[in-house]
């Protein structure tokens, strides 16, 4: 039976309602099946055991320290490049690296004066005579 104003229930009615709800709630908790109860116990022990295991401070600090070190190294590489080789060695490396050094012909025929190709026989004769010793 309900009171006339549901927002002002009679306390004599309200208490049995709450009590009944609470009893059923407690009973439902008690009636948890053995498997579930065992798993709950295991979960509780696991949680308590996890709290007992000391946190490894080394592991805790290793990641941030490593990250900072990596960032510092990257910054160092950007702002202070590797030392340059001596100028002579660098020049040699540059010369040997260019294809012109190993090839007597100009690399790009289109950019060269076409007149050079008109007297190739003359240049070949000149090169042959130039390599022979002069006997005078």
């Amino acid at each position: 039976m309900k009171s006339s104003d549901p927002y002002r229930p009679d306390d004599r009615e309200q208490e049995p309602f709450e009590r009944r709800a609470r009893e059923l709630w407690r009973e439902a908790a008690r009636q948890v099946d053995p498997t579930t109860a065992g798993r709950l116990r295991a979960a509780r022990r696991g949680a308590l055991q996890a709290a007992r295991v000391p946190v490894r401070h080394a592991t805790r600090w290793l990641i941030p320290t490593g990250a900072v070190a990596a960032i510092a190294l990257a910054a160092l590489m950007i702002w202070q490049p590797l030392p340059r080789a001596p100028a002579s060695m660098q020049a040699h490396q540059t010369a040997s690296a260019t294809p012109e050094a190993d090839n007597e012909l100009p690399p790009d025929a289109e950019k060269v004066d076409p007149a050079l190709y008109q007297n190739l026989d003359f240049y070949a004769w000149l090169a042959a005579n130039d390599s022979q010793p002069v006997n005078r």
Partner: protein
Amino acid sequence: MSTLAGTLDADVPARDRLGDVRETPATLDAFLAQVERRAFRMAELQLRQREDAMDAVQDAMLRLVRHYRDKPAAEWAPLFWGILRRRIVDLQRRRKVRSIVVGWLGGGRDDDGDELPAWEPADPGQDPLGRLHDLESYADMAAAVRKLPTRQREAFILRMLEGLDVAETAQAMGCAEGSVKTHLSRAMHQLRDQLEDWR
């Protein structure tokens, strides 16, 4: 204040409103042993899935022990129920997201184009209600509580079933004490309507 919520305010420390003595356990182990089964019931009631309920309780235990073991024992109850409540909400949100994804993939509607109910995982376990002495009454109450809006349901379980006082309930729910009273008042009103023949 003469509202129903007002009548629910008379908190007696260490003793809940129905006369059950609430002893503060000396150790975390004792506290968790005291609440673990009811915590499971609360999670199960809201999640409707035993494995998810077990996960939620396990996670709540772990978080309480890890982060709050040094707190005074009197604070464990609201902290624990608050953690568990948030975990349940997280799991419910995850399910909602999963339902949305299933809907996007075309699985949210049946052959006639009608929207299917939200996805819920299958529960392969044995029905725990089958073991209850007062099966029908608990089933009625559980069904009525499940129909309540989330905040009203939380207020009813924590305040009325679990016996936390208003301040503890507010702490666990992360809201003001006035909000607890309002939610509880509405929950009681709705439950009384639904369970009129139940008493």
